[in-house]
C-alpha cells in the first residue's frame, strides 16, 4: 500500500479532523502502548490523513489502530460529543492477541507514560544476553547517612546556629560528612563496608547525593553551608569515582613497585618524562625520550607531541616524519593535519602545507577556534608562497 486511502471503513473521510473523547478512559480500556500513542496524537486540528503519516507506524498498522480506537469510542468525529459516543460505543473489546505484548500495568495516576514492557521483536534482531534488571534492590538497602554529631566543636556549634535556610537535620548531616572527610578514607566517607561491590557503592552514592547535592537546596540562602555542600558533594563524587574506577589499566603508583610494568605503562612513563623535559626547556633531551616512548608505543598522541617538540628543537625533518605518521593514524582530525602543515612549513615545503591545510578545512569540526586557526595558517602560507614566488 503506497498511499493513504481517502476513506476508512467505520471512520469516514481521512480529511476529517478527529479529536479525543474526553469521557474515554484509556487505562481501563486496556490499550497497548501503541494504541495509546496513536490516541494521544488526536488533537482535533490535525486531519486523519496527516495523522496517519505522522505516527511513524506503517500505514496499515496505523489504520488498524485508528479503527480499533473508533470502535472503543475513544475518538470523536467532528460534530460528535461524549453523549452521542456513549450511545453508540461498544463495550471495550479484549485486547487482540499479540505476541508477548501486555496491557498497561496499573500505574499511579500521575504517571503519564506507560512502562516499557517486553515487546515482540519485529525482525531478527540479535538479542544480547542481559543480566536480569531488578526493579527492587535484592541486596540490603544502602546505609543511612549520618544523623548525629557528637561533641560539636566551637566552629560546628557556630555553623549549627548561624542564619541559614537550612534545617537542623541537614546541617548536622553536612557537618558530620565534613568530619568523615578528614578521615581520608573513601569507604568511610561513603559509609560502606570496605570492598563493597560497584552496585552497593552506586546505591550509596545516589542516596547520599540526594541529601548533599547543591541542587537539592536550590534558591535557598545557605550561609556557610553553600560552600560546605559543594565541598562534601565533590568529596563523595570523587570517592565514588575512585572506588569504582577500573583498576586494570592503572599505572603503578610507586616506581619501585615490584610488579612488572606492561609495555604500555612503560611507554606512558617515558612519555611523561619527555613532556616534563620539554616543558622544562630541554627539547633536544625531550626528543630522545619521545623517540624511546614511540618505539614502544607508536600511538598518535605521542607522535603529535613529539612532532611539536621536534619543531621546538629546530628539527623539521624529524617533525615531518612524526607528523606524517600521526596524520596517517588520524586522517579525520583537522588538528593533526594542521600539525602536519606546520611541519611542512618548517621544512620549507610550502605548496604541500597549503594542500594539507585546504584539505583539513574540508573536514567538518565542532571546533570553531580550530577552523579559524586553519584559515589563519592558510593565509599565512599563501602569503609566504606569493613572496617566495618572487617578483
Amino acid at each position, binding site marked *: 500500500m*503506497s498511499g493513504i486511502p481517502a476513506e476508512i471503513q467505520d471512520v469516514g473521510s481521512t480529511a476529517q479532523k478527529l479529536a479525543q473523547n474526553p469521557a474515554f478512559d484509556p487505562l481501563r480500556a486496556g490499550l497497548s502502548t501503541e494504541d495509546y500513542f496513536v490516541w494521544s496524537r488526536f488533537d482535533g*486540528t490535525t486531519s486523519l490523513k496527516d495523522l496517519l503519516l505522522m505516527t511513524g507506524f506503517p500505514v496499515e498498522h496505523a489504520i488498524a489502530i485508528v479503527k480499533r480506537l473508533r470502535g472503543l469510542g475513544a475518538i470523536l468525529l467532528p460534530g460528535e460529543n461524549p453523549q452521542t459516543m456513549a450511545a453508540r460505543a461498544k463495550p471495550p473489546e479484549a485486547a487482540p492477541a499479540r505476541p508477548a505484548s501486555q496491557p498497561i500495568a496499573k500505574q499511579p495516576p500521575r504517571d503519564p507514560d506507560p512502562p516499557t514492557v517486553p515487546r515482540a521483536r519485529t525482525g531478527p534482531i540479535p538479542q544480547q544476553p542481559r543480566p536480569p534488571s531488578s526493579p527492587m*534492590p535484592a541486596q540490603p538497602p544502602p546505609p543511612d547517612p549520618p544523623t548525629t554529631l557528637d561533641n560539636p566543636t566551637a566552629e560546628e556549634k557556630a555553623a549549627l546556629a548561624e542564619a541559614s535556610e537550612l534545617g537542623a537535620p541537614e546541617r548536622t548531616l553536612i557537618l558530620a560528612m565534613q568530619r568523615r572527610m578528614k578521615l581520608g578514607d573513601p569507604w568511610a566517607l561513603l559509609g560502606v563496608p570496605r570492598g563493597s561491590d560497584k552496585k552497593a557503592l552506586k546505591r550509596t552514592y545516589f542516596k547520599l547525593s540526594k541529601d548533599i547535592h547543591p541542587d537539592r537546596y536550590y534558591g535557598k540562602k545557605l550561609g556557610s553551608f553553600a560552600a560546605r555542600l559543594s565541598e562534601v558533594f565533590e568529596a563523595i563524587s570523587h570517592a565514588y*569515582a575512585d572506588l569504582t574506577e577500573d583498576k586494570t589499566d592503572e599505572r603503578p603508583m610507586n616506581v619501585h613497585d615490584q610488579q612488572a610494568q606492561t609495555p604500555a605503562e612503560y611507554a606512558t612513563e617515558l612519555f611523561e618524562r619527555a613532556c616534563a623535559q620539554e616543558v622544562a*626547556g630541554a627539547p633536544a633531551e625531550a626528543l630522545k625520550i619521545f623517540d624511546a616512548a614511540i618505539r614502544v608505543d607508536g600511538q598518535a598522541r605521542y607522535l603529535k607531541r613529539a612532532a611539536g617538540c621536534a619543531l621546538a628543537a629546530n628539527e623539521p625533518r624529524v617533525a615531518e616524519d612524526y607528523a606524517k605518521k600521526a596524520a596517517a593514524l588520524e586522517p579525520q582530525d583537522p588538528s593533526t593535519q594542521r600539525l602536519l602543515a606546520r611541519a611542512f612549513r618548517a621544512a620549507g615545503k610550502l605548496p604541500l602545507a597549503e594542500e594539507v591545510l585546504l584539505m583539513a578545512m574540508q573536514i567538518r569540526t*565542532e571546533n570553531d*577556534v580550530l577552523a579559524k586557526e586553519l584559515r589563519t595558517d592558510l593565509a599565512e602560507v599563501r602569503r609566504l608562497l606569493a613572496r617566495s614566488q618572487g617578483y
Partner: protein
Amino acid sequence: MASDKVIGIDLGTTNSCVAIVEDGTPVVIPNRGGYKTTPSMVAIAENGKRLVGHIAKRQAITNAENTVFAAKRLIGRKWGSAAVRTSLETMPYRIVEGPHDDVRIMLRDQVFSVPEISAFILQEMKLITEEYLGEEVQKAVVTVPAYFNDAQRTATKDAGRIAGLDVIRIINEPTAAALAYGFGRNIERKVAVYDLGGGTFDISILEIGNGVFEVISTAGDTFLGGEDFDRRIIDWLVFGFQKEHKIDLRKDKMALQRLKDVAEKAKCELSSVRETEINLPFIISTGRNEALHLQTTLTRDKLEELTADLVDRTVDICAKTLEEAEIQKSEIEDVILVGGMTRMPRVQQVCAEFFGLEPCKGVHPDEVVALGAAIQGSALTDEKNDILLLDVTPHSLGIMIVGGYFHKLIEQNTTVPTSKSHVFTTVKDNQTSVKILVLQGESDRAEENELLGEFVLTGLRRAQRGEVEVEVTFHISADGIVSVKARDLETGLEQSITVTATSGLTEDEIKKMIDANKDYMIEVRSGQEFDKARHGAERVLDEVETLFPQVSEIISGSDFGQDAVKKARGVVERARTAIANRDLTSLNDATEALSRTLNMFRGVVSKTRGPG
C-alpha cells in the same frame, strides 16, 4: 502577579516545545491553535511586522529571504566556523559578519544577532504559556544539544534574557529526555538516549536509580540532523534536474525554498510509505520565459541509500561514546529515541541492531525534551519533587602551559559540581607574574581550544625558574559556572575570576535588546488586552444600538430627552473611534460611559413596558 512556576523549553532547530509540571504531572502546553510544537521560525513581513512560529512558516516560501529558520545552527558560532560557511551557501536569508567575529542576520533592513532571533521564539513560547496559565511566567529551564560549547550555551541564556526569561538552568537535550522517561517510575538501570533532531545528533549514557539521574557520558555531532537528511534529497533532486535541463535550481532562492519544503515532506512520508511522489510545477523558468516542472518519485530505498553514511555516523559516535565511558552494549537496558528523525525506519533499525534491543517507543520524540526540562525546573524549585540530576561538564577545562600546550585540569564528562587543583611552576628565572589562560576543549594545543577567560597573578617571589609554585584551582558549580583561582603557595596571594565565554554580544548590546523587546512585549500584551476590551465594548454597543430607535422615540419628546439622545450618540461615536484607533485607554473610558448609557436605555424601555 508573576508566577513562581518554571517552564521547560525545548528550543529546537526546526520546532520548539514548552511544558510545565502541573499538580505533579508534566504536560506540554499547546498554543492557541492547539499545536503542541511551534516552528522555530522568525520572519519580517512586508509591512514590517514580526512573525513567529506557524505564521512565519506559512509565509516562508513567498518571503524566503526574510524568514529565518535553523538559527540554532548559528547561535554562539564564530564567523569563520564551518557551520556559518555552510549556512551562507544554503540559507535563503542574509547572514553577515558581526562586530565581534560573530554572526548577524539581515531581515529587510534590520540587522539581528542570533540570540535575538532565538529570543523571539522563546518569547512566543512564553506567551503561549501565559495564555494557558493566565499568569506571567519568568523562569525557565532551556535545553541545548549535549555537545554545545560554552559560547553556544551562553548565547542561549542571553536569548532567554532578551525574551524576558530568567533561564535558571541549561540542560542537555538527551538528559532531559531521560528525566521524562524515568519520571514517576521506580527504576534502576542504565539507559542510552539517542537524539537525532533537526540539526544535531546527541548520544548520552545515563544511570538511573532512586530518583537520581547520573550522566555517565555524552557526545554528539552538531552537523548531523534532519536538515542534513533533507539536503541529501535536495541535492539528488537538483542533480537530476541539472542533468536534464542544465539548470542549477539552487541558484534560485524560491526554487530552493520549495525544494526544501518538499524534501522535508517526502522524508517524513517515507517513514510510513515505501514511495512518494515529488511534484514541483513551475519550479523555475528558463531564459525564454518557459516554465519547467519537476516531477519524480522517491522511494524509501533510495532515501536510505542517499543518507546511509549519515546514519552510520551516528552509530560510530555511539560506539565511541560507549568505549570512552567504558560501558558494554549489554549493560544498556533501554534505548530512548528522541527527535523527529528517529521516526525513520532505517534509523530505528540501525539503532536496534547496534544496541541489540528494541528502542523504547513509549515517549513522544517531539515532546519528551520539553517535558524533561519542565521536570528539572520543578525539581529545582518544588519541595515535593525530589528528582536529582547529576550532570557533567561536556568539555574538558584547563590552562595553557609553556610550549603552547593545553593542560587539562577537569576532564570531559566529570560530574558537577567539581573542583580540581594542580601546582604549576615558573618557567623563567625571576618570573614575577604568571598569566592564566582558561580554556575549554579537547585539543592538545591551547590555541585550538576555546578561550573562556584570562587573568594574571602578580607579585611572585624572584627566584630561579621552577622554584616558585602556583596552585591553580578550577571549580565548576552545579549551574555549570566556571571559576578559576590561582594562589602563590608561598605568599598565599590569590587571584580569581568567574569565567563565561562571550556569546559575541557585549553587556550593553544585550541590555539594549532586552529594552527593545520589553516594548514589544508591552505592545503585544495590550494587543491581547485590547481585544478583550473590544469584545466587551462591542457587546454593549450591540445592545445600545438595538435599543436606540425605541429609546429615541420614547424620550425625544422633551429637550432633556433630545440632549440625552445626543449624548448617547456621542458615547457610541467615542467607543467606535477608540476601537478603530486601537486605543485601549480611550476604549476603557468609553465602555464605562456605554454601560451607563445602556443602563439608562434599559430603564427607559422597561418603564414604558410597565404594567398592562
